[in-house]
């Protein structure tokens, strides 16, 4: 068996998006030996996803609306490169960390994500978890038809492969990310039939001061709006997609006007033709590693389970730091600042010199971005009564093909009375994705059926996945050979 162990790192950073990159270079430049483990072949995470740099012809001409902070990425990438060349940092790309376990004091176990990589085991004294977030998905009748995509997935195709996922598109859901996706599609030549925002968006106007304190966000938003105006994209508020049409391929969608709680208004149906439906309901922090190490969690303002940190990005577990969306979805600026602060704190805790001015500046930047994020979440929340859009035959869990009626029956007939109970009774969330896709929707649906709001403990139970990604049996068997040694 090949020796897969990498020993004696001061720090292991998991994730190479804005948070993880900042943590790595900040700690590395302060003298820590850092192992950066990331599922991507090249750094950048979801936010700075870009075509494979081994094929320069495909690289983007950074456009004004799509490549925010590209210069910052280039700067971080260059600093990472210098640290790697200087031997301070090892970048273990193409590896998916599936577990962080105790062992002098931490063992980070990663499986190969691509063909070029081997599994690795990293011994490290400290850990930064910067695992980011993924698309929050809400089912509607017809949502499993090919041509329905998560908004983040549409964006990833655009940014990572220059692929426009459809020609005639409806973008729906809530939040400013819809604008970003719609603008990107319009610039790529798609016809955006409508952007449907479930909320009234008075919230943004109600907090102008917070928006102004975050000038980057304002400029970003203004850029999208300009693009959408130029392409004459209709923007509708208090409007949702309640059904997607087409067999074998999306042909259209039904739009409905909704009230504040998400209840459809009578007689408001409108059918639009489209070959792509992009749904964006925000993001879910990827929390299994944080939950796995025992970090304390809470329910954030957007209804997601997030991990708790102190003012210096320390989790409740000694030696484990958290940065980026895992502490609450706040966007790239906040993530980057949290990553830098986590790297700075980890270095200081390891006995390296602190930088109080940098620390103060990062804390201010985080606080400002956080205020903006809270206002944004309040203005673009998921309408509580969205499960009323579901028909009994609408699938909730695609992996195990569990429909809404089966979930409702588990509650009504079998007295299953929390999401975990419904999961083990009716099997939603028991398939390959282990509830990552349907977990949020399931907890909403059960909450409507039982009239009980899910508590942090319920969500933590759903987010508990000792294997953060599937692992070959033979690879697990290697643990029996005492690699901890």
């Amino acid at each position, binding site marked *: 068996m090949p020796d897969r162990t990498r020993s004696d790192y001061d720090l292991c950073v998991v994730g190479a998006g804005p948070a993880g990159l900042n943590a790595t270079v900040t700690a590395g430049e302060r003298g820590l030996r850092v192992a950066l483990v990331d599922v991507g072949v090249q750094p950048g995470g979801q936010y700075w996803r870009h075509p494979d740099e081994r094929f320069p012809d495909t690289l983007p001409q950074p456009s004004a609306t799509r490549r925010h902070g590209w210069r910052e990425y280039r700067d971080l990438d260059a600093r990472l490169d210098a640290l790697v060349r200087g031997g301070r940092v090892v970048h273990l790309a193409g590896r998916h960390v599936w577990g962080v376990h105790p062992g002098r004091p931490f063992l980070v*176990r990663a499986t190969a994500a691509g063909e070029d990589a081997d599994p690795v085991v990293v011994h490290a004294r400290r850990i930064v978890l910067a695992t980011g977030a993924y698309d929050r998905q809400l089912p509607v009748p017809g949502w499993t038809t090919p041509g329905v995509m998560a908004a983040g997935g549409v964006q990833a195709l655009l940014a990572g492969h220059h692929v426009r996922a459809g020609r005639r598109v409806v973008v729906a859901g809530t939040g400013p990310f819809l604008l970003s996706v719609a603008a990107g599609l319009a610039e790529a030549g798609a016809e955006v039939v409508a952007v449907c925002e479930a909320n009234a968006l008075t919230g943004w106007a109600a907090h102008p001061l917070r928006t102004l304190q975050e000038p980057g966000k304002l400029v970003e938003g203004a850029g999208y709006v300009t693009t959408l105006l130029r392409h004459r994209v209709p923007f509708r508020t208090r409007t949702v997609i309640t059904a997607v049409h087409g067999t074998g391929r999306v042909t259209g969608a039904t739009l409905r006007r909704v009230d504040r709680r998400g209840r459809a208004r009578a007689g408001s149906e409108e059918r639009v033709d489209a070959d792509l439906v992009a749904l964006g309901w925000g993001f879910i922090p990827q929390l299994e590693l944080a939950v*796995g190490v025992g970090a304390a969690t809470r329910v954030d303002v957007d209804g997601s389970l997030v991990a708790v940190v102190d003012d210096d990005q320390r989790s409740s577990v000694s030696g484990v730091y958290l940065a980026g969306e895992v502490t609450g979805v706040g966007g790239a600026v906040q993530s980057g600042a949290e990553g830098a602060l986590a790297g700075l704190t980890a270095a200081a805790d390891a006995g390296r010199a602190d930088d109080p001015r940098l620390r103060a500046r990062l804390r201010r930047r985080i606080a400002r971005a956080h205020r903006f994020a809270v206002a944004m979440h309040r203005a673009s929340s998921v309408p509580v009564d969205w499960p009323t859009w579901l028909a009994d035959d609408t699938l909730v869990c695609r992996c195990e093909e569990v429909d809404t009626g089966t979930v409702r029956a588990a509650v009504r007939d*079998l007295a299953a009375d929390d999401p975990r109970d419904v999961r083990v009774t009716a099997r939603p969330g028991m398939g390959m994705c282990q509830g990552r896709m349907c977990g949020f929707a399931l907890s909403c649906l059960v909450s409507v059926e039982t009239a009980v709001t899910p508590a942090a403990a319920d969500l933590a139970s759903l987010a508990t996945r000792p294997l953060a990604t*599937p692992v070959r049996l033979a690879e*697990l068997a290697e643990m*029996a050979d005492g690699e901890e040694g």
Partner: protein
Amino acid sequence: MTFRGPAPDAVIVGAGMLGAAVAYFAAAAGMSVIVVERGSIASGTTSRCEGNLLLSDKEVGPELELAHYSQYVWRGELAEHADLWEFEAKGGLVAAASEAQRAGLDALAEHQRSLGIRAEPVEGPAALREIEPAIAPHLLGGVYYPEDAQVQPVLAAHHLLRLARERGAEVRTHLPVTGIRIVGGRAVGVNTPDGAIDAGAVVVCAGPWSGDVARLAGVDLPIRPRRGFVLVTEPIPVTIRHKVYSAEYVENVASSDSGLQVSPVVEGTPSGTVLIGSSRERVGFDAGFSAEAVGRIASAAARLFPVLADVQVMRTYSGFRPYSPDHLPVIGEDARMPGLWHAAGHEGAGIGLSVGTGRLLVQAMRHATPDVSLLPFRPHRFADADAA
């Protein structure tokens, strides 16, 4: 006070498999019962096990007799509901890796056959592979048990409680029992945050937590948690047809060692996933991941079925078996505290043994002579042994 009306005949503490079985048979016999559960239905050991209805792993004695009786209840009185809990008579195959193991298995099988249990010798590796084509070639033979079966335990508990509710039982979830009410040396009910519940009897069905509940009545019940891990693979085409395990599993089940023991148990399921166990260790209620336990299970399973080495494991989970020092459950009224009844401590066999246990316990509560003697399972036997 939340609970009005006449006191029920029994209050059952715990809505796992045992509580559900006792509630079902009590309600079926016309008793009025309230089930009180601190979590949700089947939220403890019941949702963290494989749902085995095994005869193959039982040494000859009272537990095998209870297992045999439970099979008769599953396949008899409860047969009409079998589909609700995915009853599957998949059959069990025990494989031996050495001549010594083979001799041991043969001796056990002969005993079991004398009690009417079907235990068919499997002579040689070729015969073994006829039953399980993917099994490792180094295995020498074994014993096949066609009566070994499986249910989906969470569904079984939910449906038994639904049937009990249809017969008047009440189930209160998310309601912990905070005390046992004792009047004149007799258990007469329980206390909860919602008020007291008086009842003709208190039945403790709290699995590995039963000792904690019994302590509320001042009674010592030496039931302890014994942790086990299960690995669940991605869905794959049918590769493993039976429940297959190695001969050392029988030894491990019967051992009292508190250290980590691992023996491979592998089986396919209707959804295509493969369930892989098993480990045993006494580490209290520590629910953390154990690389050693999971690694050794994976390693042992790959030796039993080499084809599994490249299959993806998508989930692991752990649970706590209710372990009793002599490997026998506690079933019956506690002589030290009249009115206090127990149905707990079945260790890894609770799902299979639950319905027999529930039926026998209710017979005893109704002053009938149980179909199978409950004397070996008397709850106060450990105290007797201390006194002796």
